[in-house]
């Protein structure tokens, strides 16, 4: 599976429905999906790195590079950060979903 360790925290069903309403072809849909995916990656990694002490960045990146799918990375991060990162990241990505839905609604109102 093209899985990333934080995938289970992203449940953007409404965003998907919104994109389906706007995209007319598979190509358009895939393009929007890809932009959202990249946006999520930047936001998620940025959020994690902002909380992870600088001294652990390289170690985390090495682990992430070797096994980007491994949900055990969340345990590692929890240990190093000392916060319930999973919940915080879920909130952060939930906020992003809200922003995306606003963009989609905005584009639909352009009709």
């Amino acid at each position, binding site marked *: 599976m093209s899985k990333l360790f934080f995938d289970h925290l992203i449940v953007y069903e409404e965003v998907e429905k919104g994109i389906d309403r706007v995209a007319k072809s598979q190509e358009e849909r895939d393009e929007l999906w890809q932009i959202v995916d990249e946006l999520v990656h930047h936001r998620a990694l940025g959020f994690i790195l902002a909380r992870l002490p600088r001294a652990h960045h390289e170690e985390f990146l090495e682990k992430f590079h070797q096994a*980007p799918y491994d949900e055990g990375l969340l345990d590692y991060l929890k240990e190093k950060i000392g916060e319930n990162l999973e919940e915080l990241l879920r909130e952060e990505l939930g906020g992003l979903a809200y922003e995306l839905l606003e963009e989609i609604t905005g584009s639909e109102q352009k009709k």
Partner: protein
Amino acid sequence: MSGKQPAQTYFDIDKRKVDFDYLRNRLKIKHLEAKKAFAEKYPHVEKFLAKKGVEIGKLREHSAKIIGAGALTGSLLLASPASEKALPSPEALDKGKLKAEGREADLPQKLLVDTLGEFLPQKTRPLTRLEEKFLEQAFESVMGVKARAGLEGEHLNTTYGLIGAEQHLKRFPGDSVANHKPFLKEGIAPGLGAWGYFAPSKDKMTRELEETERWYAVVQTLYLPDWNSRQPYLRDWYKYRKVLIVNTQNGNAVIAAIADSGPAAWTGKHFGGSPEVMEYLGGPRYKKGPVVLFFVDDPENRVPLGPVDYNKINLPSLALRSL
């Protein structure tokens, strides 16, 4: 004068196209801002990933490559070692063994559900080759369906994942949800499936194409690591490819045809099913759940699409009690 004034031609621009362009541009701006902020704040991360040849935008592709390589060598175990269980041999479903355990009278479906419940991890994940092989043999023994995790060298990124409810697909220009009785409340997708209309017009529709839309499945072809580099072969290979979908919680199984690509990775789902597929797998309120999805090995196109009612079949390899 029949033509329009140049200043009026914008009326002809497809409104949906405008919406798409507007949204794409807005999202791109948002993405570029996030990318720029990330690069400014974490230059060492950018440098690290660049050295490894990985772009943040292509993390999913990188993950798929690692998982694919692990599956090929059989070395990848995504579950922690503590949760690994020894798989039974497919003979565990054999009549003699069942008789010895006093389970001879169990329905095949119950046997399969018990077996899946015991040996599949609770949380969906890519299966190891060993696990897939066990399931291939179990499905063939119990259902009589020759299904394979990998077929003709092709393999999905995962074969054990969450399936979500999809809408009907437009089969021909002008098709509407009213033509898809009795499942009307699910609606019809505003766009077309990955392979476009099933037929160029209503009168070109065939019974076979009707069945294909009725029993359609959605798989994440767009995330296959070689999807872009092996076109048009892969696009043709996946079009209407038959798959066996087994609900691992109740054993309900259906043969479906792949007719769309998705869902997006960030929906938490890995597969999709038509309203008919979802109804059969889990009933009218079933919207999402774990399934195993394998390709059907059916070179002569003999396996019909639709439910697999394996409680009523009788196979020589497993003397099944008829209902």
